[in-house]
């Protein structure tokens, strides 16, 4: 489904991704791990089309379509979804209005009729319960005054609403206590489907106890240095990144975060 070949990307002239190769098939869950500064978040942002990053080389296709030629919103309409690590606030715009606009943008793209306010309200309430969010929060401003945990649950709720083909989850577990982690994980597991690929970027192994990946990749210095199954994550937890030849200071940085 998703095919990344020799992807290079830089920000402000500095190369961050130095030749990523990755294939994800429909129905698979892949985890990307690695120390801070390894390029994990950059990879998510580049796939979603953040224009702050410049792709200098390589190709990315989703079901054979060249993603790199598409604008951010076009990628979203083709089914690319990014759950943000730090979701931004939009004051005065209600969650409900924001979500309905997004859902209708996608429906419009698929040639379906728009959902009216009442229909959408019903759907949104159902989905918000799935991630244990009080439906009252739908009336609040987008991410306005949300706790860290609420923001993350809100992101997963959006994925459930928008039903993407490729869901990229950027550090969805960071800043969550154990109960919230469980709720978010349940949400992500509900996303797992035969026709959907999931790419999880995470720093910690613990998320993978709840969402068991099919493959684990270690990213360091802008390249995938090691790939394996579920057991690779456990090994990393036990031995750290050092044994893969990743610099100590990077490891030190990563544990500080």
């Amino acid at each position, binding site marked *: 489904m998703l095919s990344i070949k020799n992807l290079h990307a830089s920000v402000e002239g500095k190369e961050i991704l130095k030749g990523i190769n990755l294939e994800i098939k429909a129905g698979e869950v892949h985890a990307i791990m690695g120390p801070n500064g390894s390029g994990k978040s950059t990879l998510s942002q580049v796939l979603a089309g953040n224009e702050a990053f410049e792709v200098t080389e390589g190709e990315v296709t989703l079901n054979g379509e060249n993603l790199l030629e598409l604008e951010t*919103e076009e990628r979203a309409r083709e089914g690319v979804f990014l759950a*943000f690590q730090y979701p*931004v606030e*939009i004051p005065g*715009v209600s969650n409900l209005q924001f979500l309905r*606009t*997004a859902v209708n*943008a996608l429906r419009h793209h698929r040639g379906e009729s728009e959902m009216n306010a009442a229909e959408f309200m019903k759907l949104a309430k159902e989905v918000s319960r799935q991630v244990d969010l009080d439906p009252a929060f739908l009336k609040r*401003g987008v991410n306005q005054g949300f706790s860290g945990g609420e923001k993350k649950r809100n992101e997963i709720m959006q994925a459930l609403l928008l039903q993407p083909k490729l869901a990229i989850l950027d550090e969805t577990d960071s800043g969550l206590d154990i109960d919230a982690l469980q709720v978010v994980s349940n949400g992500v597991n509900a996303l797992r489907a035969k026709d959907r690929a999931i790419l999880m970027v995470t720093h910690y192994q613990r998320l993978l106890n709840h969402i068991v990946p099919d493959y684990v990749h270690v990213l360091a210095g802008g390249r995938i240095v090691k790939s394996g199954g579920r057991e690779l994550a456990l090994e990393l937890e036990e031995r750290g990144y050092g044994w893969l030849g990743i610099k100590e200071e990077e490891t030190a940085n990563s544990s500080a975060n």
Partner: protein
Amino acid sequence: MATTDTEVNELIKREYEYGFVTDIESDTFEPGLNEDVIARLSGIKKEPEWMLEWRLKAYRRWLEMDEPDWAHVGYPKIDYDSISYYSAPKRPEDMPQSLDEVDPELLKTYEKLGIPLHEREKLAGVAVDAVFDSVSVATTFKEPLAKAGVIFCSISEAIQDYPELVKKYLGSVVPAGDNFFAGLNSAVFSDGTFVYVPKGVRCPMELSTYFRINAANTGQFERTLIIAEDSSYVSYLEGCTAPMRDENQLHAAVVELVALDDAQIKYSTVQNWYPGDENGKGGIFNFVTKRGACIGKNSKISWTQVETGSAVTWKYPSCVLRGDNSVGEFYSVALTNNYQQADTGTKMIHLGKNTSSTIISKGISAGKSSNAYRGLVKFGPGAEGARNFTQCDSLLIGDRCGAHTFPYIESKNKSAIVEHEATTSKVSDEQMFLCRQRGIDPEQAVSMIVNGFCKEVFKELPMEFAVEAGKLLEVSLEGSVG
């Protein structure tokens, strides 16, 4: 993320859709201003002697006044002798007695603007006074209003038919000597709207005036006077548009509101004068004095304005809170784009005991525009227990525009309480990325973010117009993101 800024800037480009000119025969004065011009104007309007005297007195005073230069705007010097001070569609000597007698070209103009002058049409429930260049061409729903005792007519008619009311209140809130533009208006005002709501009457419908400048090289100087007697209520809305022209045109209006004991006036403006083109050529100079006097106890005056048009705006709708427990409110959205400049805000003058005022100002700057909030909150020695709350937020779109805040606070009473909050924010790249990542069009995203920013003000507008205002912002912002 420079790319997104560029996109945002491109979104803001969009053509003005009311820029057409109505091809209609007009009687227009030769440019120039002197006592003869004023006498001729007054003569055409068959004004009584006292009115002409009033105008001439204002004119003589004006000659000695200086044009204000303290606002945060810059524009070429206006040559007041190059302006024509009167232009009216040609037609039979007398004013039309009914809509059927109104020139069909004029009716078409208002239809194009989406303002139905036929009373049966969709805005039913809103009475309209239409002012075209220097004259009022039609006022709807006069009869049902008259049944309720409400007078709703052009100011020219009021001078003829209700001279005592006009004499008593005209200039009582904004005297001719108040400021340069008010002085000019007092000398040459041509038409405008007059509203009188008698004691205890709740005006049965929204009243509104649509101002249209059509003729070239003319100024529009309208005068509006609204009087709400004890325990009455009225809600009034004005809208304005003008053709696209390369020359700047002057619009110098005066609005006076008078609220007596327990009376309430709600005054809303959707200002969409031609803003000039994307290089800053042309556009209306909107130099307006609007002031309300809460004379009576427990009275309330509420200004809501959505300002999206004009090349230069100089406007401070204010409240003089004289009656004890009276309330003043100012809710404002001012959007500037391309080379537009706005210096707008309010004055809340607290004189009575326990008077209170609220100021919510939302400034949005895009393109290369400049947007300033200027507000005065003043407490007189008698303003025991008075309080004000001010919130002043600026939103920047792109990185070539400016936002400025000039708050002034003067207090002569120690018990007065003032709160002032101010914020400046940007439509951030992160917000845009979030919206676009969810599949939302960049244009729709900017419009949604800006509308969210203005929500507190829009909810103060009458229902029908809140939607209109949201759409207007959308249109004004279109082209600011590619």
